[in-house]
């Protein structure tokens, strides 16, 4: 997929540990790891909304479209 998840970058700039973010968003640390490592196939709007709320950012800060990249 040409969509890249930059969650680790945003988390690093906000100094947010993975376990704490997972607890605040309401997902398991394993699912957060799937998301961080670009293994996810889709993201629910509710999850994206919670991530943006907790990290105080926009969806565009987390997701990025890169042409020519195919992660599948």
């Amino acid at each position, binding site marked *: 997929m040409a969509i890249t998840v930059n969650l680790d970058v945003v988390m690093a700039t906000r100094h947010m540990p993975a376990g704490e973010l997972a607890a605040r968003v309401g*997902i398991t640390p394993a*699912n957060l790891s799937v*998301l961080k490592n670009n293994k*996810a196939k*889709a*993201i*629910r709007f509710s*999850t994206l909304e919670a991530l943006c709320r907790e990290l105080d950012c926009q969806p565009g800060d987390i997701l990025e479209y890169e042409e020519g990249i195919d992660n599948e």
Partner: protein
Amino acid sequence: MDFSALLTSLRNDKNIPNGRKNILINDMSYVMMEPGTWELDERGEAMRWSPEKSVRLSEAVTWVALVCAIVSIPLLPFLPRILYLPGTLLFDSRYLTEAFVPLYLCLACGVVALVILLFLLRDIGRGEVFTQSNVTRLRVISWCGFAILVVCVAAAILVSARPTFILLAAAAGFLGLLMRVIKNVIDAARLLKEDADYTI
């Protein structure tokens, strides 16, 4: 009074005949207490037919079929004497001797399919249904069916016991086709499950 206590009191009430032990849930519906279907287990909960029990039954039937297939390997030469009925087209002693090779080939395919089926049922019992390994197993079972079809068609042409082998070929071909369709369904379900699993 909870549901299991209500069931116990109803079951033990000798004034009500077994066929009339209905439980009123609300004004519109009720549960029939059929003899045997609403027995209570040791925890006092109503026992019902469950998917786990269904898988165990399938496993038991597969084991029985596998044992029958294995037992029939040494018994095959005596099959005409065991199964011979005057006038029948199946297993006629005149034809069985020359039919040994295709019959043993079919038996080998059947045993392979049954063993794979046991592995498949083991995984289903563990809750691992829509997996790539199960798709592969169903594909192999399907090919076993088609292999029996090919062997039986060849035997129908080359061996004299034509009606027997045509019947076997039709049954095996249908089984192979059925397994192939089930394999396609499981494969599609596996992709859907993968999508759902990786949706965060």
